[in-house]
């Protein structure tokens, strides 16, 4: 039976970063790994060749992902890497700080409005009464009586 292999290595997993990592985080991860591999080469001379190969792979991965155009192509060719990550299933109130502020602000405003407090809308997006925007027009107003 065909099953996706979540264990398959990608440039991201190689560097130990998520597919959403910024370029700075990617470079930092690459530099850290390269440093570590060089130290290991000094400590373990018998494994030098293997570690050098690994370092090359890490450098390639880092180079590819640090360049926006290359990274975009890599992401396009490996769409599964972004998709196959566990998601936050909670409602925006619990999951997203920006949405949370917005949701709670609206909820609190609505709650207080229903208590007769009369909270001024933040913007026209929160208003429903625009009567004040009407402009007197004699030709129209005489027809409306």
């Amino acid at each position: 039976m065909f099953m996706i292999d979540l264990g398959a290595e990608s440039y991201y997993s190689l560097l130990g970063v998520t597919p959403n990592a910024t370029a700075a985080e990617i470079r930092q991860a690459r530099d850290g790994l390269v440093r570590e591999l060089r130290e290991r080469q000094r400590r373990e001379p018998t494994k030098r060749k293997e570690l050098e190969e690994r370092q090359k792979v890490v450098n390639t991965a880092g180079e590819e992902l640090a360049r926006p155009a290359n990274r975009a192509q890599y992401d396009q060719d490996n769409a599964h890497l972004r998709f196959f990550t566990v998601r936050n299933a909670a409602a925006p109130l619990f999951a997203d700080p920006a949405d949370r502020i917005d949701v709670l602000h609206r909820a609190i405003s609505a709650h207080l409005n229903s208590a007769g407090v009369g909270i001024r809308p933040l913007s026209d997006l929160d208003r429903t009464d625009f009567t004040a925007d009407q402009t007197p027009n004699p030709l129209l107003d005489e027809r409306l009586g």
Partner: protein
Amino acid sequence: MSAVEVERTRTGLRDAIADLSRMGREPRVRLALAEAEFRLAIAPGTEPAEAVELLRAAITHDPFLPKLYLHLGRLLHQSGKHLAALSEYRQAVQLAPSSRRAHLLLALALLELDKPEQDLGQTMIKALASGSGEDLRAAVTDLDALFDQRRPGGTTKAASAKKRPRRALSGDADGKPDAAKSTDIWRVALVEQLSRPKPLRAQVAAHLGTGSAQAKNGGGVAEYAIACVLMLINGDSAGDVHKLARSTIAPHLDDPAVRLLDAAIGLVETDDPAEFVTTVTEHLENRVLPPELVCWLHFVKYGPNSALPVADTLRLLDAYPERVSTLDCFQELRLAVLDGHARKAWADERFDEAKLLWRETIPLDPYRVPVAVNLALLAARTKSVEEYGPSWERLVELLYLHAAGAGDVQLFLNDRKTLHLALSQHSRQRHCAPATANATPSDEEIANWLADTDALEVWLREWDLYYLNARLRFRSPTHLLGVPLDAPIDTLAAARDAFVSHVDTALRGQNWAGIGAFCDLAAAKANEAFDLAADLVERGRDLYHELEKAQADALADESLRRGLLLRSMMRVLVEYEAARHIQLGCSIARRQLSLPWDILQPICADRGLIGHDVDLVPIFEADLVSLAVHWDQPKPSSDHEWSRRLVALDECVAVLPHRLELRVLRCRLLNDVGRPADAYSAALEALELPMPSDELDPAHDLRSNLVDLIGAIGYTSIPEALRQPRDIACAERTLVAARDALQRFPHSGTLRVFFVDLLVQLGGEARMTEAVELLTAGIESALNHKQRVEFETQLASTRGAAATDAIRRQVKELAEPAINRVHEAVALHNENPGGEAVQATLEIVREAQKDVSDALTVAELAGLADEVALLRDTLSRLGEIEGQLQRRAE
């Protein structure tokens, strides 16, 4: 306003619009119309879609009224069309450059877009909050520059806008921004700051300072209390928020907003969970706090990031009374807690626990897509054979169901596109080097991939679904249909039909809830695209064609690589020359033929892959035929294997119903497997396909094959033992069998000819008549010209035989009775030989001689050689008998 008053107002406005519309086009009428349409648009009870149309109409009557653009933008903004809203707000700002309302809405719309736009939005809000008109103008200029960069060949409209008269929006002053009124913005600015991942403390403090000052002056106490609550939500400690609030709003403890803040602080400071639950319940019952806020506070204190074990967090949720726990936001709270703990369990590789927790969320919301994603990933991670299939199916089903339910194919479209692409890439990478996805797999990779039918089927299916969703994403009608901009109408129609057919083939048969509705929506989109593209004026106005051209070209490129790879696969399968690959070949062929070769063929030709006069589709069809001819290799050895081969050929015919070769193969298989009646019907059905006009077309030979097959089926339905009757009795039984067979297989030419031959051989008037009737009927129902000629020729000879037969009977009727009388007379004479008996016998012999002579004459005239010889012999013997009798008489 009551509902009655609302309706009266709307009716009055409609009547006024109708009245004004009849009055001509002078400016005062146009301005009145615009105002009427505006008032109706903003009236309570007007649906957003109607309001948008009214405002657009109002703009045509008064294109220089800023409030029309502002409200149009607002409606578009509220329906999620932020880019479109931006354009309208920009117009409003153009016409009323000192309008804070317009700038604020513009900034809020920018915050909904991508990073560069969000940065500009934040700058605008900051400028509004600080009251700096210069900063605001600079931000708007930067916005125009950003749009100019993105618009192909566009130029800024600022120069032409300066010529328009500027009219203020209500409540705005011309000139410098009102310093007092800029304090309104502090709340928007504060919310915007707190919505950032890292709010700037200095900015936050400044906005709070503005709010505090306003509250101390007596206005805006509630607004400041709310701001303090937002700080609590943002993570400030209860103590810090208390300090913020104390001096400003402490004197207003009776204010509901202040009581709300106080209650929220109290909850944050509560340590005992049970007390927390009790207090929350009281506050909700007394309507002190909104449910959403208490849910958030509960989540922070006792959610997945607290020290409480998961069992305890759930027990705490269960402690709320039912009237609280059944509130929507409490259901969401429970789901958030379960999900948070499940994700922690996943990270710690406690997969059973994660599965249990995610499954607990399903009764709360069975349609939550992220839960479906997580459960699918779990099944993949644990390699659970029994859960993998159902969980991924459920995920895909939900992605389509949501779109169907909302009546919008765009909903979750990116997720669908990405999922299908991801699965197809994953399948490909199992056997092909992932180094560059654009490289063509090697022959060895293709062979390995073909051997892994599970993985291959995933790639075949998922790429198709990715492709369909990628097409649906286009806003340009020509890109959606996959045709060039200058495509003629018949190409548009063919593309639309092909797309709808592709949707039906790939999706409609899936066993997913709501998939039928989704397919109908997709078909409607295709039809809408066709209608737009067919209208040359609309096609010329297609703003998205250039914008989406790069994506369309990339998709065409992917389609081409897919098509070429499919061809490579088919060639490998054909080389195997084995029946077991036919079904896979059908799958491949179906996908090949669903690609837009009208677009791809010219690309192939331009790249030198094929000649410009080569038509690829018949080549693909021929590949499938070449594969199908091996349907009997090796010969099936069991009923099950026969069935599989039949299913495979059924599929081939379904993919290419016009290819006679496949139908011939299928008929042969049906006959070989012992289903002659089905083979017969299938062959007749195949013969109903239109005949090629070119006489050299190989289809003519195929049709002859089918006619021969039909003939053979009918003939072989007669038991073998009866096919060569050796005596009359056997022949009679053969006639019965043949008659019965012809009832079942009336178009079998071979059977009909055999039957007629036997009838003629047996002779007799009735049989001759039947033979003629059979041949006459055969001529009328002949399957082809050759068969008709055969029947006509045989009819001619049968008629001749019938005539000869009649004469034979006449000869027999003349001769036989006479010969019998002679035999009887001779027998009597031999018993009683005497003079008188001799004379009587002699008379009879002489009469018989006369009759036989007459019969001989008839036989000689008719050329019946056998009868002539027999009759002469008979006459000779009668002569001898006469001689003997004469001697006795003497």
